[in-house]
Structure formats: structure tokens, C-alpha cells
């Protein structure tokens, strides 16, 4: 009755440590397993490559950028990209209205865009996840209070709310992350709560209760892993919207403050020149697109990998 395929040989360290009856309790090292899983998926590999590249660019911006972030070259203002007529190989992606090298600015902008994009999603995600899990699982007044709070947050225009926070706390990267985080958590809270409501009615949650598992353990062991894929999907998509949100805030003068630069800032800066000098806004926009795409690919793969049913495929 029990035919089976032996998936992987027992790893040596485990087999040594355990007596022979325990030999079958094996796990290959996580690093090897994850690499294998990653290489199996093309999208995942591409996503990881993009994200890694962007990270490396962000970390080594100083070394990689050919020009300084605010180095102006008045002799070469609004120079087009190198392959266009009038472009120079010195400024591959051209220069902006003050003669600053666009490529260098994109490289410098990576750090801040990534920091804001990822960390505000992390802040919002943690807050929203916690609120969603507890309000969905416990229900009753916990749920009512949390959800009315969510309603209140949703009724205030997002950007106005962030502007108020930024105005009170002085603009800067940390305040930006904080402001976006505390306003965006409601999206996660709502979605996660909905998922929890459906997961908590499954029989395995009932089974855990009847065993006597504590509520917090049930949330951690049974609810969280089963709502996590939803979370991954919305949070990777949110990284994109957050980078754009940061752009709008920069445009309104409350985001990143010069001399710092971010992709969003560049985007809004180049808006005035869009009709005549397309490259000012296009390249930072491309940078956002590619990064977001990479994160979405990676998130997509992560969601699949976290689902045991898709393993072995």
C-alpha cells in the first residue's frame, strides 16, 4: 500500500547524530535546498538577480557612480543619452537641466528609494499583519475596535495624512518610512483579517484547539503560515506603490530633501522637461519599473516555494 519515492538521501550530520532508527528523520541543509528550489524557477532566478543587482548598486553607489550626485556641468546641460544625436559617451544617460549626470543620480537614488520602498512596507506589514491576525482570530471587541480604527484611517486621504505627519516631524528618510508605514498598515490589516477569518474555520485549527494548543501558538503555527502567501503578494506589490508614493511626496516637497536624491524625486523633477527632454524622467522611471518587477518576481517565487504543495514540481 505504501509505495514511495525516497526524495533525498539523509544528510550525514543528521545520520551520525541519531541512532539508526532515527536515520529517516532527515533534512538537507536549508541553503542547498533553497538554492535548488530557486534554480528550478526561471522567474525566481531573474527576480533574485535583479534585486541583488539593485542592492549592490545601492550599497556601492559611491564607487559605481561616475560623477558626484550634485556635480554640475554647465557646459553640458540637458545633454541627450549617448546614442542620440548630440549625446556624449561621458554621460551615457544624458544630463539634466543643471548638467548633472543622470546615471550617477540614478545610482545614488537607489539607496533611498530602496530604503523607503522596502522599510515602509516592512513597517506597514508588521503593523497590519499583527492587527489583522489578532482582530481576525479573536474577533469580538478586539475585531470591532481594530476594524473601526482601520475605517477611520481609510477615511482620511492617504497623502494628506502623510503630509501632516511629515510636517509635524520634519521631513527626512526615517520620518518618511514611519509616515508611510503608519498610514499603509490598514491595507494589510484588512486583507489579513479576511484571510484569517477563512483560515480559522478550517478543521486543523479546530483540531489544534481541541488538542489544547494555546491561542498564540495556533496563530503562529497554523494561521500565520497559511495567510503568509497573501501577505507576500500584497507586500511585493506595495513596494512599487510606495516608491511612487515617495515620488509624489518629493514632488510636493515633503519627501526626500536635496541634496539627497531618490528616483521619485528625479521623476518629478524631470516632469517639466518631459515634452522636450524625455530622458530626464524616463530613466528613473525605468529604474523603478525594473526594480519593482524584480521584487514581484521574487515575491511570486517565494509564495510558490512557501507552499509545500508546489514543491517537487
Amino acid at each position, binding site marked *: 500500500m*505504501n509505495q514511495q519515492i525516497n526524495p533525498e538521501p539523509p544528510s550525514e550530520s543528521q545520520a551520525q547524530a541519531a541512532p539508526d532508527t532515527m536515520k529517516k528523520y532527515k533534512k538537507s541543509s536549508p541553503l542547498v535546498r533553497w538554492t535548488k528550489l530557486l534554480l528550478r524557477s526561471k522567474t525566481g532566478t531573474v527576480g533574485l538577480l535583479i534585486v541583488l543587482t539593485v542592492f549592490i548598486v545601492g550599497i556601492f553607489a559611491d564607487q559605481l557612480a561616475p560623477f558626484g550626485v550634485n556635480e554640475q556641468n554647465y557646459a553640458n546641460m540637458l545633454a541627450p543619452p549617448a546614442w542620440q544625436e548630440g549625446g556624449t559617451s561621458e554621460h551615457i544617460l544624458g544630463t539634466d537641466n543643471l548638467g548633472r549626470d543622470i546615471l550617477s543620480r540614478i545610482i545614488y537614488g537607489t539607496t533611498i528609494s530602496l530604503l523607503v520602498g522596502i522599510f515602509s512596507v516592512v513597517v506597514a506589514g508588521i503593523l497590519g499583519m499583527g492587527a489583522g491576525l489578532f482582530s481576525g482570530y479573536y474577533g469580538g471587541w478586539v475585531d470591532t475596535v481594530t476594524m473601526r480604527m482601520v475605517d477611520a484611517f481609510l477615511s482620511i486621504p492617504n497623502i494628506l495624512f502623510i503630509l501632516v505627519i511629515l510636517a509635524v516631524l520634519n521631513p527626512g528618510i526615517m520620518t518618511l518610512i514611519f509616515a508611510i508605514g503608519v498610514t499603509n498598515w490598514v491595507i494589510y490589516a484588512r486583507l489579513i483579517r479576511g484571510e484569517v477569518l477563512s483560515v480559522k474555520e478550517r*478543521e486543523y485549527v479546530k483540531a489544534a484547539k*481541541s488538542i489544547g494548543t494555546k491561542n498564540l501558538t495556533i496563530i503562529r503555527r497554523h494561521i500565520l503560515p497559511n495567510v503568509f502567501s497573501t501577505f507576500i503578494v500584497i507586500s511585493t506589490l506595495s513596494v512599487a506603490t510606495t516608491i511612487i508614493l515617495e515620488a509624489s511626496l518629493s514632488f510636493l516637497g515633503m519627501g526626500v530633501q536635496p541634496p539627497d536624491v531618490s528616483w521619485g524625486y528625479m521623476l518629478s523633477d524631470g516632469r517639466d522637461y518631459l515634452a522636450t527632454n524625455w530622458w530626464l524622467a524616463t530613466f528613473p522611471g525605468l529604474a523603478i519599473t525594473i526594480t519593482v518587477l524584480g521584487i514581484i518576481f521574487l515575491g511570486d517565487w517565494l509564495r510558490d516555494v512557501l507552499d509545500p504543495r508546489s514543491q517537487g514540481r
Partner: protein
Amino acid sequence: MNKAKTAVKPTQQSKSKSPLLELKNVKKHFDVTEGWFTKEREYLRAVDGLNFTVKKGETLGIVGESGCGKSTTGNLIVRLLDPTEGEIIFEGEDLTKLEGEKLRQKRRDIQMIFQDPFSSLNPRMRVFELIAEPLRTHQTHKGEDLKKRVYELMDTVGLNEEMAQRFPHEFSGGQRQRIGIARALALNPKLIVCDEPVSALDVSIQSQILNLLQRLQKELELTLVFIAHGLPAVKHISDRIAVMYLGKVVELTTREKLFANPMHPYTEGLLSAVPVPDPEVRESRERVVLKGDIPSPVNPPSGCSFHTRCPFADEKCKQEVPEFRELKPDHFVSCHYPLESGKGTLQNN
């Protein structure tokens, strides 16, 4: 198989006849009122006054149509639901009064096997973790000891040790149900509530699981409450059978008496609905065909709740609620006109 030794506290020397579990007038009503401002509240009487006992070491089968409250009964016993009214006495202690940590400790002794083996196992946990969960929760085993116990349990229910690191989706329904059984056995419970454990399985697998449960019951001296919607499944395994109708037990007796001599017309109806393979017997037997559907538990009929479908009902049945009484030794019926010999004759009047 040697009975697994665990840190379960020794039972107080149980008197052989004393019931392990006793339900006293247990009711569970769900509020189904629609709208916030409705004055009249409506209640769904899922379970409406249950009185029965489960003796140590026996298997009590509970049968009834869908919607008769048998699953609610199971959930009430394991305290997944809180009763609206009544007492559930387990080893002399009222379970309904237990709260918090005390209740958590008590849950060790009462475990449940669920109906759907596809949703009762967390798809993200490996078999080992699934079976180890109760042991970890109550910290009865650790380290090597834990591994040994899990493998022992897997062996008991007929699973290979190699399967420990696999996920539930890699198993068939029958094997999944075995995992569920191993999990229920892990803490050496005194009572296991089986909520239709075979109804989601193929017929060929059903008997395997039933045999397994029966074997385990003998070997581990378990007490089982076995819930099913048809008589064939419970016939195989039960010592006594309770027939439920609309949230109430209408007949409770030993398996032999129930099949040989049912006294409630509803039981008779259920019995004659069981298919008979022999065409000659099938032709000759008298069938009591129940007409109509089970009435809504939101608005149950007056008097005897079965009178709307009973072929023998009269005015008395419409007005008076029949008492659940012991008509013959070990044979409880709630009917004004109980059947005499399963032939549809009236006993009195």
C-alpha cells in the same frame, strides 16, 4: 502492542460501571436572528436537551440525518463549542465549568478525529510535526523521546517511518485519516470523539479505517463516541447506538437490540433505508418509508418532534413531548407509542 507509557496521571481507580461521560440536558442554541434591530430573536436549536452516558471502554455510536445535531454534540463534548445549557460531566467533573489552563489540561483526555482528512491537517506542516503537536503542546515528550513516541504512533496506525518528513498533500485520504488518528492518540486520551471519520473516504478505505479504530480501541482500551450519518458504519463498531432526530436522542440501546428490535418509528425508518443485497429479502421485507424532510430546527414541531413524519402519529404526539425513558432494560426510547417487535405494531393502545 504495548500500551505506550506517558506522563498521563493515573486514573482514580475507576468503578467498572461508572460512566466516563455523562450529558445532562445539554442544549446548544445558535442565534440566527437577522438584522440588528429585530426584536424577536430566533434560535436554531442544534442540540435540544441531550441526556446520555458513555461507559468506560465502550463505543457509543451516534447516528442521524444531516442537521440533526450530531456533529454539534461532538463539538460540545470536546468543548469546541460551549453549551447554552446543561452539564457535561467527565470523570465526575463538569466540563462546561472549566476555563483557561484547567480546560487546556483537561483537553488531553478528550481528543477528536475529524470528518474531512483533507482539511483537518495543516497543509504546511510535515507529518512528524502534525503528530508531535499534541506532545509538544503538553510537553510530555522531548528530544529523542519525542521522536520515539511519534514513530511509535505512526507504527500503531500503520504508517511508515519514512513518511514522517512528508506533507499531508502527498497522502491519500485513508492515510491522512491515519495521521489524524495518530494525532488523536498521541496523548493517550481517555475518550475519543470520532466525527464521521470515514464518511469522506472511499468505501474500500472505510472498512480499513473502521478496523483500525476497532483494533486500537481493544488494544488501548479506548472509549469512543462514534458519530456517523448512516447505520451501517456504526453497526460495525458500536456497542451501543444513540439515534438522534432534530437535536434530541430518540432511541438509545445496544447494537443488537437496536437492529433486532427498534422501538422508535424513526429508527425503524432508518433501518429500512439500509440497502439489502439479497433481492428476495429485499422484496419480502416491510419498508417504513419516511415522508418529507427533516423540519427546520429553527422552528421545530410541537409535541414529539417526529410527529410530522411519523406514520403512527396522533393528537397526543402533536401536543405532548414524549419523555426519554427506559422502557426495557438498557433500552431508552422517547415515543408515546413505541414499536413492539419492529413490525410496526403498537405496544399499547
